[in-house]
């Protein structure tokens, strides 16, 4: 909402305050602004009179003019084709500041020029305010312009405006009058109301017109007639105020309709009464009904739209745009003024479909039912004064609206309790009065009557806010609340995720955060379970359409992004949710996933480096599992489920025999690089309880170490052997490790040799070599019996 200072000054006295200070005060009453500006930012302009005007002898375009600037006569060279002797023009003196720069003394085609004769465009006016005629040359002023006076002031272009960014609840501030009340409350100034003095004819509109309102979506419909208008240019002051309010002046009739809307916040529509006919119908549009609107477009309507119609069909799309068939044109003589209130929700839907206009914005926010009549009369008055119209008596009326003012009672105690302030009874009463609310006292209670323009106020708390914002929140002294002492904390799952995140970070992985939305394909890769997609009804783009079911595709994107930027080692993880539907129900599950690529440890000059491979990722995850309390409880099983992983280099991860996630190299079909990923389900991990930490005696009896190597087929897993060794070793076998994997000489081509190192220990006594040997031999026997592996000689 652009508020013209000149406009609002009609209704509230601003003589004691400058625009910037006013705007700042408005901010602290809750009304932010974007900018303070002027219609024209130029300065140093005067009204000049062209005393002489002759063509330059050596130019076909330039005129040599002698111009009277009031205090002096200057020679100015002017290239405009329409300059003539005797005209009053806008002159930028030497030193004047225009949007194009400062005016300096100059020589044009050898002639001295002390200033510039200006067009409107040169004043920095928005091109929508400049007529075609004005675009061609300089602007010629009317005869009443006083030579030597400020040209911008004469044109009214020195008006300042504040462009407010209003909150959606303050419908009342969508009008100059509403602004006047707000400013009045802040500055403690009285508000004046617009002038209406009608000289009406004897006949009454109600005698010749019929109104049929056939919809519930129109609580008020008023119509008034004005005959014999003359369509012409609006007076200067009206054009100026429209421009300062951001509206383009068109002609007096259209401008009056806009002017009154700005004044009262009540949109009006003017019909050519002769085209409208004398039966006005307000109804819901019929399905597929059509109307050619003022922008010449053919609109197909539906039953949610409201139309104004005559007996032949629709003539106006209510609250949004008029119809071509009843348009006010240059030769229009008689005008039917409409002032109505339409259902805000319906207008919102229609305007979303067709067009957001100044009128529809106001309808959406809501209209004061007590202004409709004031506005229609004001419009009739202005047509009478500035378009020479004759106003017909009476108002064609349909009115089912509630015009009652709301009465809310509130105690001083409640106000001060909520605001945490100590405002006196007198101050509170004063604030309500300044806001134009009527206040009566009943004991300690304020009985407040709220004018209908304040649609946003309906409960106690609304009044508390009014008191707070006018009194000033800078009076609130902050202190911490006196509440019961209680322990705060995160949920168990939040703590769990936090632990995982920080562990991965300390293992050298960097956390990333990526988008939850992806393409349909992305959202369905790296997952393996039956589920339905969660798809947006209206996505912004195809690549942000479906909620992801795995974090890995996002991590791969981050990987590609970083690789393209020469970040050659990528060690990242993300903790986030995945989303899907199962049996119609929305599910969200927490995952923690990682991607590892490149070199983990490096020292170039020592030619030492540790590149990521399967076993490094496995080690990092084992570190995490140990940290989370799953020592000896996890295992790695062949992956047959995630198709996007390298089938020979991927595993499913199990804890206590249940799958908690997967890990492996990304399938070469997806990435040519050797990149590893993992994804763990936080909920699945949390399903496995972890014992509390407890002290355990460090073993004090010596251990016995034995080494053992088996030759086996290459496709046999080490785990097969290890499982048997563990089983036979029982409690006596403290730990088992692989210390060598060998292929090559002395081992057949399809075979490998794996060497294990076994540690035997009993926490309660010293083991004898003999008893260890018994178990050791049994181990060999069992492995050889149950598998094709053979113990390696030596």
């Amino acid at each position, binding site marked *: 909402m652009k508020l013209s200072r000149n406009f609002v000054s009609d209704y509230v006295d601003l003589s004691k305050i400058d625009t910037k200070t006013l705007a700042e005060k408005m901010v*602290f*009453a*809750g009304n932010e602004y974007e900018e303070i500006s002027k219609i024209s930012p130029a300065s140093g302009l005067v009204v000049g009179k062209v005393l002489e005007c002759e063509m330059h002898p050596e130019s076909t375009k330039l005129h040599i003019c002698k111009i009277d600037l009031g205090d002096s006569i200057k020679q100015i060279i002017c290239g405009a084709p329409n300059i003539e002797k005797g005209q009053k023009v806008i002159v930028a003196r030497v030193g004047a500041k225009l949007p194009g720069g400062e005016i300096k003394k100059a020589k044009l085609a050898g002639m001295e020029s002390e200033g510039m004769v200006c067009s409107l465009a040169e004043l920095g006016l928005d091109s929508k305010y400049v007529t075609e005629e004005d675009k061609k040359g300089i602007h010629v002023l009317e005869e009443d312009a006083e030579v030597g006076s400020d040209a911008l002031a004469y044109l009214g272009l020195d008006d300042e405006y504040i462009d407010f960014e209003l*909150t*959606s*609840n303050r419908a009342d501030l969508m009008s100059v009058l509403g602004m006047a009340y707000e400013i009045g409350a802040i500055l403690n100034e009285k508000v004046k109301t617009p002038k209406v003095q009608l000289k009406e004819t004897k006949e009454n509109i109600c005698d010749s017109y019929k109104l049929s309102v056939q919809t519930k979506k129109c609580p008020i419909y008023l119509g008034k007639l004005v005959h014999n208008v003359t369509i012409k240019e609006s007076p200067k002051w009206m054009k100026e105020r429209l421009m300062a309010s951001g509206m383009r002046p068109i002609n007096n009739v259209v401008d009056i309709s806009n002017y009154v809307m700005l004044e009262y916040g009540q949109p009006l529509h003017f019909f050519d009464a002769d085209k409208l006919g004398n039966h006005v119908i307000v109804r819901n549009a019929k399905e597929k009904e059509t109307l050619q609107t003022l922008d010449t477009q053919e609109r197909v309507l539906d039953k949610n739209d409201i139309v104004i119609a005559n007996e032949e069909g629709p003539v106006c799309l209510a609250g949004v745009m008029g119809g071509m068939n009843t348009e006010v044109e240059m030769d229009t003589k008689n005008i039917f003024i409409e002032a109505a209130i339409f259902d*805000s*929700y319906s207008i*919102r839907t229609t305007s979303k479909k067709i067009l957001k206009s100044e009128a529809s914005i106001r309808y959406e926010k809501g209209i004061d039912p007590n202004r409709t009549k004031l506005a229609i009369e004001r419009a009739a008055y202005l047509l009478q004064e500035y378009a020479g119209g004759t106003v017909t008596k009476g108002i064609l009326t349909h009115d089912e609206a509630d015009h009652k003012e709301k009465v809310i009672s509130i105690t001083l105690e409640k106000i001060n309790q*909520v*605001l*945490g302030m100590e405002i006196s009874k007198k101050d509170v009463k004063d604030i309500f009065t300044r806001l134009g609310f009527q206040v009566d006292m009943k004991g300690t209670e304020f009985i407040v009557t709220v004018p209908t323009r304040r649609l946003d106020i309906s409960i*106690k*708390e*609304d009044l*508390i*806010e009014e008191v*707070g*914002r006018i009194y000033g*929140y*800078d009076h609130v*002294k*902050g*202190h*911490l*609340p006196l*509440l019961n002492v*209680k322990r*705060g904390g*995160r*949920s168990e799952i*939040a703590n769990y995720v936090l632990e995982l995140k920080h562990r991965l*970070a*300390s*293992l*050298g*992985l*960097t*956390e*990333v955060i*990526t*988008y*939850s939305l992806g393409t349909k394909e992305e959202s369905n890769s790296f997952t393996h379970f039956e589920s339905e997609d*969660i798809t*947006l*009804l*209206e996505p*912004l783009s195809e690549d*942000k359409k479906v909620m992801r079911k795995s974090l890995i595709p996002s991590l791969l994107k981050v990987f590609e*992004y*970083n690789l393209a930027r020469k*970040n050659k080692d*990528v*060690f990242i993880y993300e903790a986030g949710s995945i*989303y899907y539907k199962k049996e119609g129900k929305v599910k*969200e599950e927490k995952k923690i996933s990682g991607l590892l690529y490149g070199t983990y*440890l*490096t*020292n*170039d000059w020592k030619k030492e480096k540790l590149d990521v491979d399967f076993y490094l990722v496995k080690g990092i995850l084992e570190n995490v599992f140990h940290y989370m309390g799953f020592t000896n409880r996890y295992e790695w099983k062949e992956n047959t489920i995630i198709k996007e992983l390298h089938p020979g280099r991927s595993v499913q991860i199990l804890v206590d025999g249940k799958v908690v996630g997967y890990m492996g190299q990304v399938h070469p079909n997806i990435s040519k690089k050797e990149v590893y990923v993992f994804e763990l389900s936080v909920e699945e991990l949390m399903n496995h309880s972890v014992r509390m930490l407890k002290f355990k005696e460090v073993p004090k009896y010596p251990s016995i170490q034995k080494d053992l190597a088996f030759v086996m087929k290459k496709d046999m897993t080490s785990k097969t052997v290890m499982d048997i060794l563990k089983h036979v070793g029982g409690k006596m076998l403290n730990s088992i490790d692989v210390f060598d994997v060998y292929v090559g000489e002395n081992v057949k081509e399809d075979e490998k040799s794996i060497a294990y190192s076994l540690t035997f220990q009993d926490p309660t006594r010293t083991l004898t070599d003999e008893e260890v040997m018994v178990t050791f031999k049994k181990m060999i026997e069992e492995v050889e019996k149950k598998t094709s592996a053979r113990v390696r000689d030596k």
Partner: protein
Amino acid sequence: MKEKMELLKKELKEKLESVSDLKTLNELKTTYLGKKGPIGELSSMMGSLSIEEKKNFGKALNDLKTEVTALLEDVRVSLEEKELNRKLESEKIDVTLPSTKVRVGGVHPITRVIEEVEDLFISMGYDVVEGPEVEEDLYNFEKLNLPKGHPARDSQDSFYITNELLLRTQTSAVQARTMEANKEKGPIRMICPGKTYRRDNDDATHSHQFHQIEGLVVDENVSLADLKGTLEVFAKKMFGETREVRFRPSFFPFTEPSIEVDVSCFKCGGEGCSLCKGTGWIEILGSGMVHPNVLRDCGYDPEKYTGFAFGIGPERVAMLKYGINDIRNFYTDDLRFLNDFNRTEGGK
């Protein structure tokens, strides 16, 4: 006899001067202290002495032994020291050569802000609560005093999945859920961090996905002064001890009164600079007193309970705190950007 002993010592001292390794020293030791050595020879002469002489001679012999041992020991110590120094010298490395690079990981700057805020509020007795990101219209809007068709919904263009299901546009949705779940138990003190989504095109200041931290206190006699005090603690923790907080009236459908909160500019200290656009203040969050309709719809009697709520934008906090000028940085995840946050701020 005495002369013999002196001579022996002198001779040993001379020999020791030229000893340069432990092996020679040990040979010398055996030579002098061994049974067949000069001291042994002397002691074998004892038998031919009288008792009185024996006594004197024995003492002198013992003294000699002690002296010889000490002389040998001194040389041993000094030799070993020399040996060690030689070893250390030979093991000396160029400490200025580059290190073996050990990876440094870290958490995302947004996580960092969220954790810092969580820890602060936990210390004041708040619970950290979570809620679903795919949310019902009921909790995201309706229970927050935003019925269908409310114009304020326009400012939060939403990603709908069905007519009743959407990606939450605000963590305020969790307010309604928490109150509803807690209504029998009474007072609430919670914050809710999480992802939120709006149908905005991504640019330097907009992101279709971003984070919020909702805060909610519901109790008897909670006031705006309590809210201000709480946010002052927050502002000082996040932006520095000398920060001040300023309230401006605003409008949010779920709070009444509604407050826009500014913090005194931490770059210029309030004098006015490019960051605060000359005003000395920076807008940081929206807040207010919980609207009675919200309390009532979620099972709390607005006559008995009041409450305050606030919504912190971790992206905004991080951008201000760390001087980041484009919100997209948080989601493109360039490791050079992220790794700048892989360190502490020295206990602050």
